């Protein structure tokens, strides 16, 4: 049993950071795919698709992720769907991520001047071709900084996965503190590790913001 906060305990934190990173990456990838789909739906010509997407985004952004995870992991089990914790965590975080990315990306797509749509449709392109060759490449540039910015928040928000049994960085800190009662050393280390992950990402996002803003006309 852990007696005090020392090197092995610090390594425990570092190992737990692995889960934090894995879940961040998985949730982000999953969220990107779903979020991308919703971003496009949100801009679709069909009113029904647009409304479905807005309601989805609005609701997901308005409930605590912890609850989503909780109800999907334990609740679905009650209903007879037994999903492994990794899947439940990835799905819940991914759903959460998707709502935010959908919003960010919709904004980025809308930030492409509408004249670009007109110019490309005047050149006889199909809607798919317009997205593929004209709109998305431009939206991508616009979206990178806010997307990276969101990723920074995601790193910290993955801590909710402890409810399905993952010992991520935040949870590991809590466990060690429970055993050692040395909150300042333990949570100090936790904060430093988070900072070491998040700060470079924040910088990157700022850097991209600067770099990518050149190269836009009009």
């Amino acid at each position, binding site marked *: 049993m852990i007696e005090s906060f020392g090197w092995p305990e610090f390594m425990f934190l570092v190992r737990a950071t692995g889960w934090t990173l894995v879940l961040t990456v998985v949730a982000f990838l999953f969220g990107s795919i779903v979020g991308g789909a919703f971003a496009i739906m949100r801009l679709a010509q069909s009113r029904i698709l647009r409304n479905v997407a807005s309601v989805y985004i609005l609701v997901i952004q308005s409930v605590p992720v912890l609850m989503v995870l909780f109800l999907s992991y334990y*609740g679905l089990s*009650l209903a007879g769907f037994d999903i492994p914790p990794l899947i439940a965590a990835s799905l819940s975080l991914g759903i959460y991520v998707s709502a935010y990315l959908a919003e960010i990306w919709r904004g980025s797509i809308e930030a492409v001047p509408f004249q670009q749509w007109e110019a490309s449709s005047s050149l006889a392109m199909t809607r798919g071709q317009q997205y593929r060759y004209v709109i998305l490449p431009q939206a991508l540039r616009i979206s990178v900084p806010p997307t990276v910015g969101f990723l920074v928040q995601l790193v910290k928000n993955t801590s909710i996965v402890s*409810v399905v049994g993952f010992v991520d960085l935040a949870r590991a800190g809590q*466990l060690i503190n429970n*055993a050692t*009662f040395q909150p300042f050393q333990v949570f100090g280390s936790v904060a430093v590790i988070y900072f070491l992950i998040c700060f470079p990402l924040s910088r990157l996002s700022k850097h991209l913001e600067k770099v990518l803003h050149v190269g836009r006309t009009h």
Partner: protein
Amino acid sequence: QTVQDIVKRGKARIGVLIGAPPYGSVDAQGNAVGYDADVTAIVGKYLGVPVEVVQLTPPSRIPALESGKVDFLIATLAPTPERAKSVLFTIPYSIFQPGIYAHKNANITKWEDLKGKKVGVNRGSSVEHELTSREKDLNLQIMRFEDDATVMMALFTGQVDAIAGPDAQANAAMKARNVTDYEQKFIFARQPNSMTVRKDQTDLRDWLNNVIYYIKLNGELDAVSRKWVGSPLPELPVF
């Protein structure tokens, strides 16, 4: 679900609480250790199948049980009548004595001395219920924290005047932090803890009762108590 079902499956999934030493904790490798973990190992031995120890947080204990993620809980839960409306409890397998802890200089020897004071407690515990029942009479300001470590932190930083908590945990905390100016003021109850099963697992509950009875007699439980609490197994009440 019966014991036979578990044996047939060839694996038992037992939920333990972690984050509440010395009953439930982890080692630096992240494995569950403590009183509950050792009892779990013994129960696994009598089941005769490998045990998957599922580590749980306080809010996920009951959902994990009810959703079938675990077969039963050995998770330091106090059998209160209100809770028993939702789940079934075995006879107790551990016990601790919740007491009031405060600064040495504080003149507290009985409940009345806490009048109007701020008292910290773990919000997930049955001790909290005990305090709440006296809240009105004593005009207590109860502060309910996330877990025992946070409760102790509140005491040590002076954010509460006193705390109510299990003796074993309070002692462990004071020892770990090497604090000498806090002490136990009085013990106000005995809190036995039970293993927990779902409403429909009466067969399993009976079998677990049997195991508890058995390991009380053969000294195995006493050894666990000596190892983690540091004292012989006290008399455990039964129902």
